């Protein structure tokens, strides 16, 4: 979960890090009042769109202006749309007199935490990494020992920082790592990390992403979780929101549900098997209407919610219930979910193709449920995932005729 700038800066300010004064505003009037409290009419303030999107500078969503002009600038930024979202909040901050702009970030590799430092702050760091990779200094952090002062000093030294700035930079780096760790962050980026014309340090640009799996240690974060973002930052669809709701309401592992634009509904499970089956549907010439990956649950409720979301979409012309050999879950719970939804929606299973590949505990009970619905193709024991994917693609094609996929393409 990405924290907005006001929240991440509040967390850093709390532990005494040098963060410029700033506050949240919801209107141009409020922005103007806050700006005048921060600076005299001819002094400057920074006005920033308070959104999770990156690279706000490029979109004109960050401006520095005289506090007397804050209302006008704020109104302009509030009229912008960034990443499909209308800007609704602003962050009004004292302007900093910049002498030097540096870059500092903490993130995870698949071995553990890493730190990146560079003297090339205040610009798009990906461009720097591309043009002059040596300008970035990377280092693995030992998660047991933490980051020590001399290690941080060595990084800045290697990056080419002036000697007289190294003690200040390394002390700040160690404290920011502690904030990264103590706030269970997955990512903390300071860009720019500023040395002011007065020779002080200021944490000016912050991007912080906290670990959703550690929310139990930080109950205050729960309230501001932005759960409206889907893949690529697009807003969640109605169906995706319904599944998210079910994830919160019912016990058991979370179901991942992402809507796509094909015609074959997938209720598939297994972190690996769900990827494999998605590849296979495409391989046999079908197109998935969604991606799912569900985990075993003690009750059918989550699968019911997912099936409702899948079948709510008129473009869906067939359904694959496909799982790898279940080793932890009960087959009958999955089929109970299918039974509930088919009955509730009065689906005619002789006309709507459904292929089931479900092997594991309580399989006889699951087969008995399927047998009550004529037309459901519950594959015999041992059938492969590839056979299941081929069967649903062919069934949909046979029912709809060859024109269906091109027709679907236009919608």
């Amino acid at each position, binding site marked *: 979960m990405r924290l907005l700038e006001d929240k991440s800066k509040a967390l850093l300010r709390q532990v005494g890090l040098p963060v410029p004064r700033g506050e949240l505003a919801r209107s141009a009037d409020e922005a103007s009042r806050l700006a005048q409290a921060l600076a005299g009419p001819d002094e400057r303030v920074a006005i920033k769109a308070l959104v999770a999107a990156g690279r706000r500078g490029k979109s004109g969503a960050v401006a520095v202006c005289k506090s007397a002009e804050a209302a006008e600038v704020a109104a302009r930024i509030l009229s912008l749309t960034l990443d499909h979202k209308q800007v609704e909040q602003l962050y009004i901050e004292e302007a900093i007199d910049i002498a030097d702009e540096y870059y500092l970030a903490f993130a995870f590799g698949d071995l553990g935490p890493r730190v990146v430092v560079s003297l090339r702050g205040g610009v798009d760091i990906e461009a720097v990494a591309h043009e002059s990779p040596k300008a970035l200094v990377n280092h693995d952090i030992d998660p047991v020992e933490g980051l020590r002062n001399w290690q941080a000093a060595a990084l800045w030294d290697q990056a080419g920082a002036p000697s007289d700035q190294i003690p200040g930079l390394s002390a700040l780096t160690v404290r920011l790592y502690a904030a990264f760790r103590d706030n269970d962050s997955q990512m903390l980026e300071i860009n720019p990390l500023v040395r002011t014309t007065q020779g002080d340090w200021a944490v000016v640009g912050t991007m912080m992403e906290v670990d959703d799996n550690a929310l139990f240690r930080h109950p205050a974060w729960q309230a501001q979780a932005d759960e409206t973002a889907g893949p690529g930052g697009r807003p969640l669809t109605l169906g995706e929101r319904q599944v998210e709701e079910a994830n919160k309401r019912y016990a058991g592992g979370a179901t991942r549900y992402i809507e796509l634009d094909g015609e074959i509904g997938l209720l598939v499970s297994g972190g690996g098997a769900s990827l494999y089956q998605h590849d296979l549907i495409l391989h046999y010439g079908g197109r998935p209407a969604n991606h799912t990956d569900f985990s075993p649950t003690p009750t059918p409720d989550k699968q019911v919610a997912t099936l409702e979301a899948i079948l709510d979409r008129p473009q869906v012309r067939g359904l694959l219930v496909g799982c790898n050999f279940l080793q932890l879950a009960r087959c009958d719970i999955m089929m109970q979910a299918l039974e509930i939804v088919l009955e509730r929606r009065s689906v005619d299973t002789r006309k709507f193709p459904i292929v089931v590949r479900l092997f594991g505990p309580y399989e006889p009970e699951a087969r008995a449920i399927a047998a009550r619905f004529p037309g459901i193709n519950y594959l015999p024991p041992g059938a*492969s995932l590839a056979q299941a994917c081929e069967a649903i693609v062919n069934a949909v094609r046979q029912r709809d005729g060859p024109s269906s996929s091109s027709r679907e393409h236009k919608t």
Partner: protein
Amino acid sequence: MSILINRYTRVLIQGATGSQARFDIKYCLEYGTKIVAGVTPGRGGEHVEGVPIFNTVDAAVRATGANASAIYVPARAVGEAIDEALDSGIGMLLSLAENVPRHDAARTVARVRRAGAHLVGFNTNGLISPGQCKMGGIGGDRTDAIYASGRIGVCSRSGGMSAEISYTLKQAGLGVSTAVSMGGDPIVGLRLVEVLRMFEADPETDASVIYAEPGGTHEAEVAEAVRSGQLRKPIVAIVVGVFQERYPRGASFGHVAAMIQSDADSASAKRQLLEQSGIKVATLLDEIPDLITRALS
């Protein structure tokens, strides 16, 4: 022979009184796994499927000589549970819960390495040396139908794909020495290349099958180890998740770790990397037995 676990492994279950643990203990005992103790603080003196429950790992180890632990505690308690097991000298750990907080996972893996222990997981369904021992839910209630004993090593991030690969091998008359589900969380204990080095050193493993998906650097390490000659036994890979390249970067479809963050993370890039090192890559599971047989002949 086998790697990591065998017929002499004496298994302890941490969090033994929870519902998933009870479910798995039953099937593991039926399979022949020597589950000698369970631990749930406050429940010492009880039994689960006839297995005695202790209040601490230390007490369980002293009473039963357990030398491996399957950890069924919730994700938030996994770090503590593993520390407790390490403190009692347990050398083989399996951690099942998914979504272990990232900082906890990193610290715990570092501690396990320092102790010279082996951790399989996080977010795994277990590992099995067919005919000898299994830990976790792997194989469920029909282990023998999926996993035949033999001379092929299997290693996969996905528990389900471990099963599908092993089943495909079995249908072709091939068997498995050990199958390891490495775990689907972004940070895991044993890395793919480490498991393959164990197979390399195991006289009763002739070749290995690995499952690869987008995200992470496991396959790059394997390709490097093959190129440098550290891994000489044949390896066949199945690479999935090519479809993900049709969607925006940063979208995660399967395991949280299966996320394309850079071009090198994609299934196509991994496929190319593995093929260039000399590893045979399958698109369909059904191609695997043939590739293995040809590599061994």
